[in-house]
């Protein structure tokens, strides 16, 4: 709580001033943005407003139904995840035995994926705050990921979800590392796009940790030295604990059975598997063919309806089995998640057909496809944009 409140406090005084009005970021009550995105250019203001009301109604419907069964769901997932985590780690302690190593590494990989995706990401969004359970709350939760939860909440919940895919505002478009949009000017180092991305995937958690420090903002003077120092300290503590657990404490205990080295390989593998998986799922969210990016003119004067439209046409889903949805933390319902980031994730599947129907009726794209196709599509973009050229395909 303190970390985030201090950070935003610093920010709000520097940007807003004590009582600046109107506040930046507030949605317009009516009207339209300076430019409506091409995919929605055919809609009138009234149609967009009506679309907004329809989506609000979908949300209200879920809020009315949300209750004991949802609470039981998240508690069950947490219980299963913790069971997998301790059995996986226990098996790795006997990693000299090949079967134990494979079992342990597999269980731990699955546990880490569940922890980050269906549990951590969604709790940190505040999806479960309505239960008022301090053990499962966006202000108390810390996750098994190098970046501290509070730092991630700022860049992800506040910046990325508010400014989804707006080039120049949403740094998730390429994470300050990759050229992921044709509107980003090409520089020679972009030739390394595929290489950077390939290196990023297995160490994704470290990449996100550095990204959440907002070094570019600091260099531009938008982030104070004190704030950066504080974030560095928080990251240092968190990284040390994470590193110690997986790469020192677990192998040290495993040395009792002569399995120290094997346990270390096991935790390294589990973290890498989780990183590659999380990287793939997240790249499928906004980078595949069909998911649009936006200019700052397109958000100037945006109403709630226009905001909804941008979330839908800027995101892409992944189709697949129930198990796949669980393992992606329901980010396979990226469109629904971006419309309603604080609805419990177990409800997205139920909302999806209604959202798809609305898109169809209003003539808006609803991008979805199987995992491999979407991963391929986002990698194609990584390669294509390594080369100069403005033409959007």
């Amino acid at each position, binding site marked *: 709580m303190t970390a985030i409140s201090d950070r935003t406090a610093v920010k709000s005084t520097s940007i807003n001033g004590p009582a600046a009005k109107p506040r930046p970021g507030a949605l317009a009550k009516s009207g339209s943005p300076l430019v409506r995105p091409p995919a929605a250019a055919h809609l009138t203001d009234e149609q967009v407003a009506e679309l907004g009301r329809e989506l609000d109604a979908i949300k209200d419907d879920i809020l009315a139904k*949300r*209750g004991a069964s949802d609470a039981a769901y998240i508690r069950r997932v947490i219980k299963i995840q913790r069971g997998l985590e301790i059995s996986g780690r226990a098996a790795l302690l006997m990693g000299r035995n090949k079967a134990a190593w494979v079992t342990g590494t597999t269980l731990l990989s699955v546990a880490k994926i569940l922890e980050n995706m269906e549990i951590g990401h969604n709790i940190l969004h505040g999806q479960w*705050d309505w239960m008022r359970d301090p053990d499962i709350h966006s202000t108390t939760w810390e996750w098994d990921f190098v970046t501290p939860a509070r730092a991630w909440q700022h860049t992800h919940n*506040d910046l990325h979800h*508010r400014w989804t895919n707006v080039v120049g505002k949403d740094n998730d478009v390429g994470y300050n590392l990759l050229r992921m949009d044709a509107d980003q000017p090409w520089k020679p180092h972009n030739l390394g796009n595929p290489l950077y991305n390939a290196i990023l995937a297995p160490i994704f958690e470290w990449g996100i940790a550095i990204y959440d420090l907002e070094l570019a903002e600091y260099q531009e003077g938008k982030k104070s030295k004190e704030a950066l120092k504080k974030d560095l300290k928080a990251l240092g503590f968190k990284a040390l604990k994470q590193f110690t657990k997986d790469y020192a404490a677990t192998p040290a205990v495993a040395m009792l059975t002569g399995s120290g080295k094997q346990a270390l390989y096991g935790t390294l593998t589990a973290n890498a598997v989780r990183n590659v998986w999380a990287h793939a799922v997240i790249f499928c969210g906004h980078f595949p063919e069909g998911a649009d990016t936006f200019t700052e003119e397109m958000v100037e004067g945006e109403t709630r309806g226009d905001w909804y439209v941008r979330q839908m046409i800027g995101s892409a889903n992944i189709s697949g089995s129930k198990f796949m949805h669980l393992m992606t933390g329901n980010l396979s319902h990226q469109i629904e998640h971006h419309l309603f980031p604080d609805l419990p994730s177990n409800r997205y599947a139920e909302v999806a057909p209604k959202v798809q129907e609305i898109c169809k009726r209003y003539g808006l794209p609803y991008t979805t496809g199987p995992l491999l196709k979407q991963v391929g599509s986002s990698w194609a973009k990584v390669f294509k944009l390594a080369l100069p050229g403005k033409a959007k395909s």
Partner: protein
Amino acid sequence: MIRLRRLARAASVLTTPLAPEDILALFNPVFSARQLRGVVTKVVPETADSATIHFHPGRGWKAHKAGQWARIGVELDGVRHWRSYSLSAPAGEDPAITVSDVGAVSSVLVRQTRPGDVLFLAPPQGDFVLPEHPRPLLMLTAGSGITPVMSMIRTLVPHRPDADVVLIHSARTPNDSIFHEELSELADQFPNFRVTHWYTGERGRLDFGSAAQLNELCPDWRQRAAYACGPEGFLDDAEALWSAEAAAHAEATPGPFAADPINLIIERFNTSLVGGAGHDGGLVTFEASDREVEADGNTPLLDVGEDAGVLMPSGCRMGICHSCLTPLRAGHVRDLRTGEVHGEPGQLIQTCVSAAAGPVNLDI
């Protein structure tokens, strides 16, 4: 204990970012790193509308003094709600609460609680406790106001031959009278304990307008340390009688050598700020920042705070990112999205989409 803590710290190297308790909770629900919990051991019906719930608290609970209360958290349709209840068990034993079915939370406690259920707890507190030195006592209770006094009687009467306790308990009928049988048994068994059951259904309310009825029921009431617990009006009347007597007493024996002061110790059931309904707004107090400002019922508390110069945490300003969560200390807020009025002390509220519904205190 210290060794246990050291062990837990060592174990947390392997469980981080979780605490070892989070793992132990897989096997025993009483474990939690953040939230004191207890397991229900027994549920005893008292009257048609009340029940006593015995529970065994987890580590971190501190033993209660007779007469204290505790905040108890219960889940209703997945949402945790907190209420304060007096503890009716004697000091030195596992705690128990005696609950009357008068609202959604107490209804769940009375009707649906079963042994093995988990209750969420805050440590016992309150100053409505027995005097430090032995004194003759008078207990005045009405309705469920008997609960904290029952804890005192159970603690004192069977164990202290030198105790001298008079209880006058009001209830509508014998059937509505909680602990009726146990009180009669104690009175039969221990001559140092006297109980008068006053049935308002038959005799009307106990009259504190003058000392007449009290003189009749307990002639030496002025010499006793008095405790009162019951509904608002009952307590107001008793308080008025005692202060009138104290004034008369002070006049009769002037000077610094007056006899023991006539005193009355009162337990009121918490009356937190009641929010004005609808769009009324109210006075918003930012406690840590020491600022107060009048707000209307349609302005988000985030804006109210910022305009007042309070450093409010903020994020998306549209109710999605939960960066602005601030603990509510008292009062009610209206969700500007749904119009729902809600609020319980300690609840974290989204200030960007909540407006004041009556006076509001925020912990910031």
